[in-house]
Structures are given as structure tokens and as C-alpha cells.
């Protein structure tokens, strides 16, 4: 049963360099200060999941991203891995969108592209980490979704069984297609591109969708404006400063234990 799958991906600053990031207090937008960009780690798992499904069932994979022109890079990387087509939602007016605006913009893209059997997302991005966009995208598209998915498989051509993680339990969820899954990080081992894949990618298509395209595909009463906005950014001041116990090791240890005892800790 060939599947028509969409993978939503995002270009993010490499989390390894997060200490070099700062927010511009005037604009409320993140400044990357020379930090390199990568595909959001969770999204690499989503791409791999789509590729695995295609290996088994055949079909087509489209990758979509919302971002500035530089974000084409994550689509190119996805195409080199075996994704068939890339789509970039790119417009000045999309910058600084909150999660619902993002969901609506991506939803417009999905409607323009004609709909899918399965939509795969990483459950969160490493930069904003709200965990909100996948679920909101599903609601805007009026399809069901399952978040925090750590495992899934088809029980028949139209039905998926997923394991959905919570802090305390694993929920078993049965869904019929079309459905959106937000995947936990690390649920698979993302493959690396092959030389053949990189060469083939050059012939694949990246489609651009801008704001005016989106306006024609919005739901009733919808617009792409953000409801939330940043009004203040300030440096996080340390809540407290530890009292440092100094001196000879055993004496310090004794002092600490006495203090803990006094606090009733043991």
C-alpha cells in the first residue's frame, strides 16, 4: 500500500552552540551570532521514519519547512537522504510567528499540496521547544494526531497502532489514516546520505510557497497572524548564590552534614 507521507522539518541553530545564542532585546527575535544551522534533531528521526516506511510500503515522501531562504538547506539534505520533493514556506511576514500561526501557515501548504496519508513531525524543535506545533497543525487540518510517539506500526493498510509516552505510562493508541504523528527523539537511527542519493537530489524539486499563496488556502475565518508576542527579554539573574563551605576536607564534610541534620534532611 504505497503511502503519501509528509515530513515537517525545521532548520535550527546547532544545540551544541546554544551558549552562543542570544535574543535581540529590541526585536525579540533570536540572533544566531555565527552559530551553524542544522536540521532539528527530532526531525531527522521523522525523516528516517518516513524513509523506512517508504522502503517497506513504497510511495512518496514530501518534506516541508517554514523558514528563511537559508532553510532550503534542510530540504536539500532531506532530498539527499531519499525524500522525493521539498517545499519551503517562505515569506518575510512568516518571521516571528507563534505556534498557531506556524501551524496555520503549514496547514495552508498542506492544502495547496493536496493532502497526505500520514504526516510525521519531530515532537519539538531544539530551539523553541514548545512541543505545540504538531498538535496544533493536526487540529487546524482537522485530522487526529498522536504526540510523543516512541513506536508505531501498521495493523492494516488504514490503521496505525502507536505507543505514546507519558511521564508515568505508555498509552496504546489506534488511529486511522490520515493521522499526524509527533515522534520522540531517538526512536530510530537516522541514515546517512549516500553519494548516489546526493547526486539524485540535484534532479529533485524544491517548491516555494509564499504568503499570498497561503492566503488562498486558509481555513474559514483564519489568518496567519500571531496571537502571542514577546514584550520583554532580560538576562536571567541567578536566584541564589551557594554558601561555599571552605577549609580542610573532613571539617567541611562534618560541617555540611551538621547543617543538613539541622535542616531535618536526615
Amino acid at each position, binding site marked *: 500500500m504505497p503511502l503519501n507521507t509528509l515530513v515537517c522539518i525545521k532548520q535550527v541553530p546547532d544545540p551544541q552552540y546554544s*551558549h552562543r545564542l542570544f535574543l535581540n532585546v529590541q526585536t525579540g527575535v533570536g540572533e544566531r551570532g555565527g552559530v551553524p544551522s542544522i536540521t532539528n534533531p527530532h526531525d531527522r528521526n521523522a525523516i528516517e521514519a518516513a524513509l523506512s516506511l517508504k522502503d517497506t510500503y513504497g510511495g512518496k515522501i514530501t518534506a516541508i519547512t517554514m523558514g528563511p531562504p537559508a532553510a532550503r538547506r534542510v530540504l536539500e539534505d532531506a532530498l539527499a537522504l531519499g525524500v522525493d520533493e521539498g517545499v519551503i514556506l517562505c515569506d518575510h511576514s512568516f518571521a516571528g510567528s507563534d505556534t498557531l500561526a506556524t501551524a496555520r501557515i503549514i496547514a495552508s501548504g498542506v492544502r495547496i499540496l493536496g493532502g497526505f496519508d500520514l504526516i510525521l513531525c519531530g515532537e519539538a524543535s531544539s530551539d523553541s521547544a514548545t512541543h505545540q506545533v504538531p*498538535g496544533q497543525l493536526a487540529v487546524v487540518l482537522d485530522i487526529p494526531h498522536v504526540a510523543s510517539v516512541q513506536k508505531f506500526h501498521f495493523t492494516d493498510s488504514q490503521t496505525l497502532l502507536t505507543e505514546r509516552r507519558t511521564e508515568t505510562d505508555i498509552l496504546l493508541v489506534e488511529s486511522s489514516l490520515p493521522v499526524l504523528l509527533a515522534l520522540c527523539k531517538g526512536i530510530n537511527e537516522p541514515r546517512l546520505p549516500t553519494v548516489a542519493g546526493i547526486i539524485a537530489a540535484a534532479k529533485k524539486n524544491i517548491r516555494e510557497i509564499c504568503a499570498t499563496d497561503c492566503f488562498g488556502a486558509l481555513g474559514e475565518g483564519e489568518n496567519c497572524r500571531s496571537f*502571542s508576542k514577546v514584550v520583554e527579554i532580560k538576562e536571567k539573574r541567578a536566584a541564589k548564590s551557594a554558601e561555599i563551605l571552605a577549609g580542610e576536607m573532613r571539617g567541611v564534610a562534618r560541617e555540611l*552534614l551538621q547543617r543538613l541534620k539541622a535542616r531535618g534532611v536526615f
Partner: protein
Amino acid sequence: MKKALVWLEIQQGEIAPVAWEALGKAREMASPGGLQAVLIGADSAVPWAREAVYHGADEVFVAVATDLALYQSEAYSQIFARIAQYSSPEVIIIGGSMLGVDLASSVAALLGTGLTAHCVELTMESQSNGEPLLKQTVLGGGGNMLVTIICPEARPQMATIARGVFPPAKRDARHQGRIIDWEVKLPDKAWWRSRTIGIEPNEAGGAALRKAEIVVAGGFGMFAAGGFALIRELAEALGGAIAGTRAAFDQGWIKETQMIGQSGVTIAPKLLIVAGASGALHFTSGFKGAQTVVAIDKNPKAPIFTCADWGIVGDVAQIIPALLEEIKILNKNPR
């Protein structure tokens, strides 16, 4: 009257800790008489309505059906959204657990309003026109900044709260409130396009760690001390649980269930001892609720010392054995 609406999530048969925290915080946002809670589940959920009132809720909407025993993403969010449309609260505060974030995201999309994730501070302010505005503060910019967000026009104003940051609602059995039976109209089985059909305990969820009163955690700094043996010894001597940072997990010293932090377990023990961890935000955010924190690190400028009550600067390989010796002495002469 300013109303604040809260979801009372049920986790393993009890109200989830973060839900009590949300109720406590929402009390500050609501006018007297305006704190409302929503309970969704099967018959077993009903007794919690009275508990919600004892914890300060002025009104509790109880939406019960056999099919709602387990969390159902679409059904729960649609029920919650309908209650919100009926009640028109000024704000909706939901605990930032995994299910809470899922429900809040769906509800915000259904209601067409903004939602701020994992708030570490929430304050209600009066605007010049007298209208209440919720100031929603989150950690951002790589974790070094406090970012304040508002939803100036759309209503209700929605936020999820980070776990373990706000104190839980206090219980007072004298508090009175209304319990409202909310009629549930579920679509027929043919519509249930996505349905939770079963549940298993999540061994990897870190529940054991979350219950521990004493926790000893280690970070990459334990490498120079030969690994986690000293952490294990200290934990055993204190009768506590072992935990660590992502680096400790990557080294193979701990399991994922023992990893504290933003993508790991959140803990709030009586005592947390952290050794050899510099104190990166994605780690320290996992123990904001810890009552007493002791940090041990060789770098006096390590950020961990801004998250601790007491600190010892030096080599963990010497400090922990010293502690172990003193604990032995204390155990022999408990005075």
C-alpha cells in the same frame, strides 16, 4: 469576575502533581469565586472533584464517560474547549506535563488563541483600560534569558506551566465550591478516528526517581574521579537515589530513567547533592523544586553554585570520600 480555568490531569489514579501546581497558580489569577477546574475521565475521577474544591476550586466541571477512562486527545480537548467556551475564563492554566502540553495545544488551536509553553512565571496585570493581561515568562535564548510574552487580543489567555516551579495548591477541607456535572456527548464509535485502547506502566518514566527524598546526581566531572562509583557509594550511604546529567547518560553511567533535566526527569527531593556537573540550564531546570541543594565542583565559577544552597569547591574524588567517612561517624554516634 475574572475566571481562571485549570485541567486536573489524572495520572496513575491521582491528580498529577503539576495539576495541583496549576490550580495553586491559577488561584492568584482568578477573582474570589472565579477559580474553575475541569475533571475528565470515567467514574473513578468523580471523587477528585471534592478534592479539587478542598484545594481551592470554586467550581469543578466533571465530564465523565466510560470511554474517557484513558486520555483521549481529541475527545478531551473538544470537551475542554466546549467548557471554556461556555464559561469564558480570562485565563486557562494547564500543567506542562506531556499530556497537559498536548491538551493545551489542541485547545488553543480549537479556540484560536495564543499559548505559551512551560512558563516559569505568570503574573496578572491591569492594563490602562482596566483589562487584565497575563504576563507569561519562559526561559529562552539558549536558557540564559527570561522572555516575557503576552497575548494582547485573543481570549482566553493560555499558558502551560513548567513542572516543579510553582507550589501546589494548599488543601483546606473547609473550602466550599460547586461541582457541576458536564454532559458528555461523545461521537459514535465510527468517528473515533484515533483512540487510546490500552495503557502500560512506563518503566522508563523515572517514577522511582521522582519519589526519592534524597538524590545524589553526577555529571561529566565524575570522569576524572573514575566514573560513578563514588556517586553510588554516597547514594547508598544516604539511602538516596542515583541520578545524573545527559553527559552521565551518554557515558553509560546511568539509565535514561535516571537522567534529570529538560528532556529527562523533573525531581523535587528534600535533598539533592550534585557532584561534577557544571550546571547547564537544561540540567538545572530539572530540579527547581528541590528543597536543599548541595553542589560539589572544582570550578568556583560553575553555574551550579547559583542553583545550590551550599557548595564545596574542590576535587570530587577527595570530597565524596570525606563525606562518606563523616557519614560513617555520624551513623555510629547519632546525636
